[in-house]
């Protein structure tokens, strides 16, 4: 399996790459409990993009869960497969809670958090490199982020369960643009209150 790229994304930083169909991206949680927020687009027409509701409706029809794990297929707003999760040491990846933003932080954690760094700052900067903007910042995946939805409807961000060196592998099912924010959040447990670097390895499938 030949390596296309192998880089370390610093704590709190963005990253993006275009995967050709069949290529595999491995995201490694180097130090554990690090949420990795990700957006996915059809590389040739980014108005086709990841849709959590299409993905979960399909999972529900197959008696699958409200979270993502090995075997999950991430669908677009046209119902097409963008990427598949082909390996995973964690077993739980959220897609319901969205990405943190400066604005939502003020609501969730208090106005005093307004000028702290957030995933949507990373995403907007990275989107701008592709001529995309806030209208394109839609539903995302939070790899390694533990967000239970309890039977009474409670939704919380709980302590992460990923181990040091834990990883998830995504196989591109079409040519796909992947945007990543190595989550800078310290106001909830998604990063163990201590953001850390991740490693991203892209290889030929």
């Amino acid at each position, binding site marked *: 399996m030949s390596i296309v790229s192998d880089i370390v994304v610093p704590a709190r930083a963005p990253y993006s790459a275009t995967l050709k169909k069949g290529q595999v991206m491995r995201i490694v949680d180097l130090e554990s409990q690090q949420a990795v927020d990700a957006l996915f687009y059809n590389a040739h027409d980014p108005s086709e993009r990841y849709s959590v509701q299409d993905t979960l409706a399909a999972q529900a029809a197959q008696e699958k869960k409200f979270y993502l794990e090995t075997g999950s297929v991430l669908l677009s707003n046209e119902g097409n497969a963008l990427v598949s999760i082909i390996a995973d040491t964690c077993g739980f990846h959220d897609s319901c809670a969205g990405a943190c933003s400066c604005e939502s932080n003020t609501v969730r954690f208090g*106005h005093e958090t307004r000028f702290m760094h957030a995933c949507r700052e990373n995403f907007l900067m990275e989107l701008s490199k592709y001529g995309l903007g806030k209208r394109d910042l839609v539903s995302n995946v939070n790899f390694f982020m533990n967000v239970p939805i309890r039977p009474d409807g409670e939704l919380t961000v709980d302590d992460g369960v990923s181990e040091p060196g834990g990883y998830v592998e995504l196989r591109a099912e079409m040519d796909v643009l992947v945007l990543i924010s190595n989550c800078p959040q310290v106001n909830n447990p998604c990063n163990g209150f201590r953001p850390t670097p991740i490693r991203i390895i892209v290889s030929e499938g």
Partner: protein
Amino acid sequence: MSLDAESLNLDRLTPEQYRARYEALQARARARAAAPAVQAAAGALPRVWKTETIPSGNYVGLKLKRFDVIRIHNLEGTAGAALFLWNADDVSERYNAGDTVKLQWTTVLTTGRVLFSDMGRVLASITADTGAGHDSIVGPNGPAQANGARNGRDNLRLAAAKFGMTRRDVGPAISLFSKVTTDAQGGFHYAGPPPKGAMVELRAEQNLLVALSNTPHALSPVQESTGAIRIEIGHNAPGPHDLCRHFTEEAVRGFENTDREFLTP
């Protein structure tokens, strides 16, 4: 709490201090969720200026002014109605399903809860509700479920198109009148169609563009609408003790962000 970032030195707390802040917020959210406020509307809607019926499978686009109130009546108990909202003054601000459930610590949307935009502001409040359940996790159906019938995704897209927008502008939506729960193993459960006459009332907290479609939930076994949706739109500004504006501390902060946009000299 009105500490500014500098005095709190928020980028340099210890993990234990951040955790203590988070757990205090969580405890208050749990206390609120344990005391729900489900209630149906009390009386006639004030200052009604529009009524409309949406036949099975169809949709409408609506322009609401701040503090307009819309009652949505599910006359025959059809299995859902798809809803999406934009700020009419800047359509790049739109309904955000993730923020709506995360900021309120719950997927249960009913009286007292609010619908958040992507900008930490409130688009609409749920001011009354008969309690049929409203789902923003799985949401409205689409072509994959509808087997050729008119469906929520396409109808929301059509409504967006008539406001000059495209598929870029329609994100995860709400399926009104759709109760979905999860079990301890992580599976989904769709509770079945709502009772006839189910109603939900929303108050616009900004000037809004609204797309509303009479089409089922994605998990409904019946994938075609089985009856009309009736809407009434009136106007009723919130009073000083308004439930939604004080129901949670998160809503209070969301309304502080919202009302700041409507300050006048």
